[in-house]
């Protein structure tokens, strides 16, 4: 069988191109994981332990038993939401560092909704209302930096950092002064809108906090994939993020896209709050965000801003986070926090480096300045 010459000319180039693009997105996380693995081994050796034993224990305590795996799923649920939140901003060319505050705002709003609804309200009604409240509160918190950027050109990174502190301080004040159960830093339990745990379906998960909000998070990932790659809104959003001048030329109102993207980003981070409030503790508690907002940045980065990658990256970081507890006997659990930092730093450094290496041949083709 002989292929027509034209096709045989095109086919290999098509394959090369696909592999280059894929390499450009997949290589940095792989390189970063290798670096983290080496750094981790060195640290473990410094503690006088065997790396194989520690990583073995880490896997056994997470993916090796149903409880551990349930905990991984629980932590991944929040991380998927905050990871999607950061990614949607980055796809629009904006860096939302406010997921931490937006997550707390969403959780708080979900708790308020659950407290406000009469007990015995059908879950079919209560859960969507609580989810809506969480997304609304998170979205409002994301809308502010969006408007400040579109209207005044205020840099979203600084504004979202500052808003984190403002939102958390405000929530702390409201809870401490008006809503807390005496002697605690949390609200009363919600009356409606509780989401069952996964153990209701799979008894083996018993004791773990994994709950059905995981489905909501996965649905959000699917929704975001559709939005980004199938909808016109996603077309406009990605064009804005890649080349705002071309987007404007293409009739896209760039400032509106900014506001929309940051609002949606905040809403997704806010959605993450339901995992804790509706699915696990059933109340809002000071400090519940616990760094999961910041970790969302790592998830988006390692997941290369793609919903599928984000789900995988969320599972990875959730595994690390849960795995810390499992290895505590050999190495202090803070070991995994160090690993997280190393992974993020390594990915950040590897992304431009890999791109440079892969595009080295084209660099001079850019032409005279």
């Amino acid at each position, binding site marked *: 069988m002989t292929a027509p010459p034209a096709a045989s000319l095109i086919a290999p180039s098509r394959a090369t191109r696909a592999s280059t693009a894929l390499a450009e997105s997949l290589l940095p996380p792989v390189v970063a994981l290798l670096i983290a693995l080496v750094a981790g081994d060195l640290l473990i050796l410094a503690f006088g332990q065997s790396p194989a034993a520690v990583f073995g224990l880490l896997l056994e305590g997470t993916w090796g038993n149903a409880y551990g795996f349930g905990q991984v799923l629980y932590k991944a649920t929040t991380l998927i939401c905050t990871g999607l939140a950061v990614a949607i901003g980055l796809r629009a060319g904006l860096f939302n560092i406010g997921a931490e505050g937006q997550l707390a705002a969403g959780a708080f709003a979900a708790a308020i909704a659950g407290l406000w609804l009469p007990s015995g309200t059908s879950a079919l009604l209560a859960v969507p209302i609580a989810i809506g409240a969480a997304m609304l509160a998170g979205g409002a918190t994301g809308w502010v930096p969006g408007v400040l950027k579109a209207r005044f050109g205020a840099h979203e990174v600084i504004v979202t950092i500052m808003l984190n502190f403002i939102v958390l301080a405000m929530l702390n004040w409201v809870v401490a002064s008006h809503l807390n159960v005496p002697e605690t830093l949390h609200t009363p339990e919600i009356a409606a809108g509780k989401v069952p745990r996964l153990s209701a379906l799979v008894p083996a998960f018993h004791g773990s906090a994994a709950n059905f909000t995981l489905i909501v998070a996965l649905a959000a990932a699917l929704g975001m994939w559709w939005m980004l790659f199938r909808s016109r809104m996603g077309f406009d959003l990605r064009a804005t993020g890649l080349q705002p*001048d071309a987007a*404007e030329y*293409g009739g896209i109102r760039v400032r509106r896209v900014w506001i929309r993207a940051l609002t949606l980003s905040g809403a997704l981070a806010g959605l993450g709050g339901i995992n804790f409030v509706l699915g696990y503790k059933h109340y809002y508690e000071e400090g519940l965000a616990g760094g999961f907002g910041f970790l969302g940045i790592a998830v988006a980065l390692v997941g290369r801003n793609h919903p599928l990658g984000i789900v995988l990256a969320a599972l990875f970081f959730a595994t690390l986070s849960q795995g810390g507890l499992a290895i505590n006997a050999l190495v202090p659990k803070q070991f995994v926090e160090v690993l997280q930092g190393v992974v993020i730093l390594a990915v950040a450094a590897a992304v431009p480096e890999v791109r440079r290496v892969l595009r080295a041949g084209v660099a001079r083709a850019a032409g005279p300045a």
Partner: protein
Amino acid sequence: MTAAQAASAQLAPLAVRMSGIVMRFGAVVANRGASLEVAPGEIHAIVGENGAGKSTLMHVLTGLYEPDEGTVAVDGHDVTGWSTRQAIVAGVGMVHQHFMLVPTLTVAENVVLGREPRRYGAIDMALAQEEVIALGKQFGLVVDPRRRVAELSVGEAQRVEILKTLIRGARILVLDEPTAVLSPPEVGELWRVLRRLRDGGATTILITHKLDEVMDISERITVMRHGETTARLATADTTPADIARAMVGREVVLAHRGSGIGDREPREAGATKGAGHALEVQNLVVGTLRNERAVDGVTFAIAPGEILGVAGVEGNGQTELIEALAGLREVSSGNVMLGNRDITRAPVRERTDGGLAHIPEDRQRRGLVLDFPVADNLVLGLQHRYTRAAQIDRAAVVAQAERQVRTFDIRPPDASRPARALSGGNQQKIVIAREMGRDYSVLLAAQPTRGVDVGAIEFIHSRLLAARAEGKAILLVSAELSEVLALADRIAVMYRGAFVAILPRAEATTERLGALMTGATSVPGATPP
């Protein structure tokens, strides 16, 4: 070589001698065997159209680029491939077209940056200021050393740039388009400075494409075209027409003129279709941050089936005019009618839907999302027409892309490839396919053939002429005079934001247009507006 010649060469080696310079950037060849000879103490002009390779040649001289082939000698010494630092030490200084000044620093700080006079570990700012004032007095470059550069006028900022090179001991001074941003009195001021520098023994190389200036200031002229040196002239023995001939004259385009323009009837604006203008612009004023009247009261109309060419030296408001018409820049006053529809302040999409197509001047920044596939780029700006229930109809996008790739011969014929991976000519074909492969009545074509190869130029020109034949109205802005002459029915000349003349094609000659473009009024045949 005779003994006498050798002796004279020894006595006064050329200040600059560049020969056989080849400079490649990937597939683009910016210099192909260019040469330059400048005698010490002369004011030497390098002229040529945009993209002729003038700046690249000068960047080779000042050490920014290392040439792929050829040699560079300064004061008789071979310095091929030296660094900017070595060039500075050897007394070669460059005043860039885009000033290399830090706006937040003062004049004195900018001047001494990198070679600060010190006193007890601190900068001796008093000494620095004295130096600036003393040097300024010597060459007539007066500027207050304590002012921040951000507060200076363009002319003052340029003086600081020249001071910067002088204080570093520059004896060979390269100025890249120094008058592009200056007002006439400032130009006169600059000429005085350059003459004083020459009298002090300095050699000056001036890049420009304004012929009247060349005649004014230079002693010798090197003309470049397509990366090659095409003429060396003594200013006293030449005329602007000679220079223009050496600058322009693209055989490819002129061939077209023979086959395309010769056999079509000339039109007068609006004459054929009665009152029906496709595009009508009245008293349009557009401002930028630096210039409130970058477009200064422009009025014109284009009839269906007509090409109005806009000639002019770049930076005279063409970009702002096109952007304002396309809806990318705010209009200060005036009126734009697209057919019967007032689009003066309409958003981009409304203009598109009203029948306006736009080939932007910078396709890589504006016209394409380089990381999007070709297929998506082929619907950029039309994505709303490919949307069903909030979702982009991928099947329709792909079908459209396959059609366009075939019709416009986009290569390689694979619409899933990112636009970034295509050559400049094929990238431009994407833009052309999108803008001209749909229903429209008016086309804004800005520099449609810039940076594309010969084959693509012919293709684009034939497309523009075909669109004209179909009754489209086209506004063509080009820095290539030959292109405007080959395609347009009427030619407007833009100078300092205004249309100084609109000539029927038959009355437009290179000499006349060249004179109008440079704001000169004394060239024979030119009638002041």
